[in-house]
């Protein structure tokens, strides 16, 4: 069995036991994955295109259910949860999508405040918080802009701000530096590190960018043809 256990102490924030995923007719995209991530860990996920990185992330941010096996988040077996409980669990997860998934008809401010709005909070209660976060990601002057008027890097940062607004326990980012220049990529990663250190957020980042992986020296999970393997070369001591 293919096992990867960056840390085994305490109740894991993420635990996958024998997880496989298959879409409709194709072969397994993910095979027999076992994984445990302790709360507060910062982990990279890498692998060639088509290795299954996005599929693994989809399982973690509860977009799909595994074909086989069990996914546990924060000690909760997701297959045993009601739809309402799954919604509540999703609110503890922030996701930075590769394609941003910003809503074009909403302003930057409204896109960032979306997770708060869907959880029933009134605009008056979160305005300051959203403005502060937009300033933190360097979009303080663009809060009334629509996404299509923002550059790729600005959209990326907007997407990150939306993922962070709920102060998630788990942050999942799929190629978060794919659309930004190297300098902005480093800035975004520093932002993740700061979040991880300050708030103890568990962070999983899927990336191809080996230079960033080397620079930030965090544990690396590598996917190969749907199997999870340890990348010893970049694993921190």
């Amino acid at each position, binding site marked *: 069995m293919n096992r990867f256990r960056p840390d085994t102490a305490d109740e894991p924030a993420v635990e996958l036991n024998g997880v496989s995923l298959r879409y409709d007719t194709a072969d397994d995209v993910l095979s027999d994955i076992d994984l445990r991530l302790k709360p507060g860990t910062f982990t990279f996920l890498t692998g060639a295109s088509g290795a299954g990185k996005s599929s693994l992330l989809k399982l973690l941010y509860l977009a799909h259910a595994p074909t086989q096996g069990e996914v546990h988040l924060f000690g909760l077996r997701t297959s045993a949860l009601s739809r309402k409980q799954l919604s509540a669990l*999703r609110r503890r997860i922030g996701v930075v999508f590769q394609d941003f998934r910003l809503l074009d008809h909403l302003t930057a401010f*409204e896109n960032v405040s979306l997770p708060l709005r*869907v959880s029933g909070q009134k605009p008056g209660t979160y305005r300051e918080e959203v403005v502060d976060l937009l300033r933190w990601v360097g979009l303080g002057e663009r809060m009334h802009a629509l996404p299509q008027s923002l550059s790729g890097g600005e959209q990326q940062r907007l997407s990150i701000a939306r993922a962070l607004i709920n102060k998630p326990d788990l942050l999942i980012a799929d190629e978060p530096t794919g659309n930004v220049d190297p300098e902005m990529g480093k800035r975004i990663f520093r932002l993740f590190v700061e979040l991880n250190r300050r708030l103890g957020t568990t962070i999983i980042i899927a990336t191809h960018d080996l230079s960033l992986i080397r620079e930030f020296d965090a544990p690396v999970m590598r996917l190969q043809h749907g199997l999870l393997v340890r990348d010893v070369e970049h694993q921190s001591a």
Partner: protein
Amino acid sequence: MSKPTPLLPESDAREAALFFVVAALCFLAVLATLTARGTYTAAHAWSAQVEGEMTVRLKDTDRRGAEDAASIVRGLDGIRSSSVLSQEELNRLLAPSFGPGGIPAGVPMPILIAVETTQDAPAEAGVVTAALTDAGFNATAESHADYASEVQRALGTLRIAAIGIVVLLTATAIAVIAFATHAALLARRDIVDVLHLAGAEDRFIASLFERRFWTLGLKAGSAGSLVALAVTAMIVFSAQSAGTQSQLLPQLSLDFWDLVILAVTPVGAGLAARWAAGGTVNHSLKSVL
């Protein structure tokens, strides 16, 4: 602070098309209901009127004899009034056949006695005929209720057909809205996915679509209702201005129940739209984790 932008984008061309379809269906439903109700009301009034009437035909007698016969009829139990029809009344009665010039000279016409029976225990035509025959008259009495029963039967069929049309139109509207909601949901799958993954509950997402389609149904239903009212009014007014005998045509009578139909249709359309939208969204969301 400005009002937050709706999470679903403002209506697009698809919703404009759906608005038209729902408005058209509501228009047809209201028109069918008002027409059926108008026809039924007119026929009911006509039936109630003719059921208490009968006509006596007298042959081989003159006007004086006819007055005597009318007097005999008046004396019978279950009779409220009886009077011999004057030539002017006959001309008016037969105007649809002979025109405004009246009955041409030489056309043999019986003398007619118009009889009104009482509501309680009305006299039967046979009793009237027998009484006049006994008095030496060549007379035949005919109750108008005999004609009314055939009209009532036809109206019963018309009523069932109208109800069937309304039910069919309502079902069609619900099916169209469900289909349109599904299309809207597919077109806005990106928004639904983002909301879903941001932790929005199914109820929250469904309520966005329910509100949108409730408003659409309400507005489209109101438009359909008003156009139906205008068309009905136009038909009746044009029929009246043409001088058509419209006793059995649908009557535009804005009484309480007409207002109820006009008010309930948009609400019904809104509720049907809301129900179809909610059901479709919930069903669709159940298919994802």
